């Protein structure tokens, strides 16, 4: 088995799929592109949403700045980086 960890994930705790939609819109408004979205309903009725983010931007500095703004703006969703082992 080969283990690859090369993707860029952000996790968020949201209360509903509406909040997930709101967050996705916020990503879009900051020109951060989501490649995939995964979700899991946790025992306390919240959702943990995982966004796989594109890292292919011409201006990395702008990307990091936008990401930082997003993390600050949506602080209550516990935005955090995550890595996952994808076993192939």
């Amino acid at each position: 088995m080969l283990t690859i960890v090369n993707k860029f994930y952000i996790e968020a705790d949201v209360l509903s799929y509406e909040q997930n939609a709101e967050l996705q819109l916020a990503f879009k408004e900051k020109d951060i592109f989501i490649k995939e979205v995964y979700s899991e309903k946790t025992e306390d009725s919240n959702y943990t949403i995982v966004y796989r983010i594109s890292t292919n931007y011409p201006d990395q500095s702008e990307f990091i700045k936008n990401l930082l703004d997003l993390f600050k703006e949506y602080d209550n969703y516990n935005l955090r980086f995550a890595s996952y082992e994808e076993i192939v």
Partner: protein
Amino acid sequence: MSFKYQNEITLNKDVDFKLEFKSKPLDFRINAVIHDGQWYDIKKWAKVSMCKVEDIHKFIEENKNILITKNDSYRVDYDEVLKWYKENNLSLTENIVPNNFTPKLWAGKTETEHFELTPKRIISSVIVTCKNNDVLHKVRSIVHGYGRIQHTHGDRYNIYTSNCFFVKDRILSSLTEEEKKYISVRTRSNFKWRELSDFSEEFLSEALRFYVVYALGILKPHQKTLDIFLPNREDQTSQIYDWVMTAMQKFDEEAAVPFPGYLSNVLSKWPYDLPDLFLGRELAKFQRDRNRALTRLMQEDGQEIFEDEIIAQEMNYEIEFFKEMKKADEQWNAFNKIQKLEWEDNGNEKSSISVFEEESSSSHSDPFFSNKLSLSILEAANETKDFLSFYNIISQFGGEIDMSKLKVSDEFKDSLRTHLF
């Protein structure tokens, strides 16, 4: 899927192709756009042709004989499309206009002509919601010969008829008082509707084949919603067929706009109906109300766990009803999780389809600390502009980081420490 079909559904957005198109003579560009047989208003026609509006006005003046006009929109007919492609020695299956489809010529007509020749008709309907199969069976026999009954979703049925009031009276006068308890009957009069059976079979089959694939592209932003409510791929495809067919029934041919534009528009909205459709309005409303109430409570109290009584009070729900809905919600979620088990085509269970495998080094352990650490990493990256260190650090991110083992610059480490502690 045939090669021809793949060619039809492909939009060429290549930059070189755009430049090549722009370098073609003005007359060719204007002709190439209008000869896909779709409706164009002058502004859009000019935009797609990459020319000025005045150029289009001039073209219209000089080519009135080939143009069909309606509501300030223009198109050409099937014969004219074929004639122009033949005169210019062009293939009908090859993209010649950037971002446009090849001409949709099905069953001897353009798509636009099929819709024009299959206009919507004014009809009425009786909307029946019935929770009892025996009563429903009786309703079917009552309306037999007076209207066509069609299941829409859940317990809801539409009876298409020429006189909805007559059919409603007939249903209500034929049912007993006891039977009426299980049914609600509403009328909707004088609206326009198109029956799919009015289309030619060949057109319908070609159009569905094309637009279901087209819809898959349009629905990509809603893929996760589809996965939640329709975990089975076959169910998703059926739903997409249903949406495309409904759009074909509702599309107003008199508006002189292209059908793909209309379909894109409705497909951006209809997936939002899925929660109501699959959860039922009551449960969908409960979920929305509870989420709003929890958000309010968390903002007010700063806590994250609340007793059912407090949430119910915030939602203005009776506690018994709240508990009943909560149970229904839990059952739905449990059922949904079972449905989500996926299998490979070869029958082997997928090795790692979910990112929520226990082996994954996700940051589930302490989201608050992970959030603080993530924010500090971003601050450090923003400050140092050392993006290589940034990607190195987050590729190993599991909520806790041993900086001594990380391949990050000293400058980045210093900045991270400053922001973190």
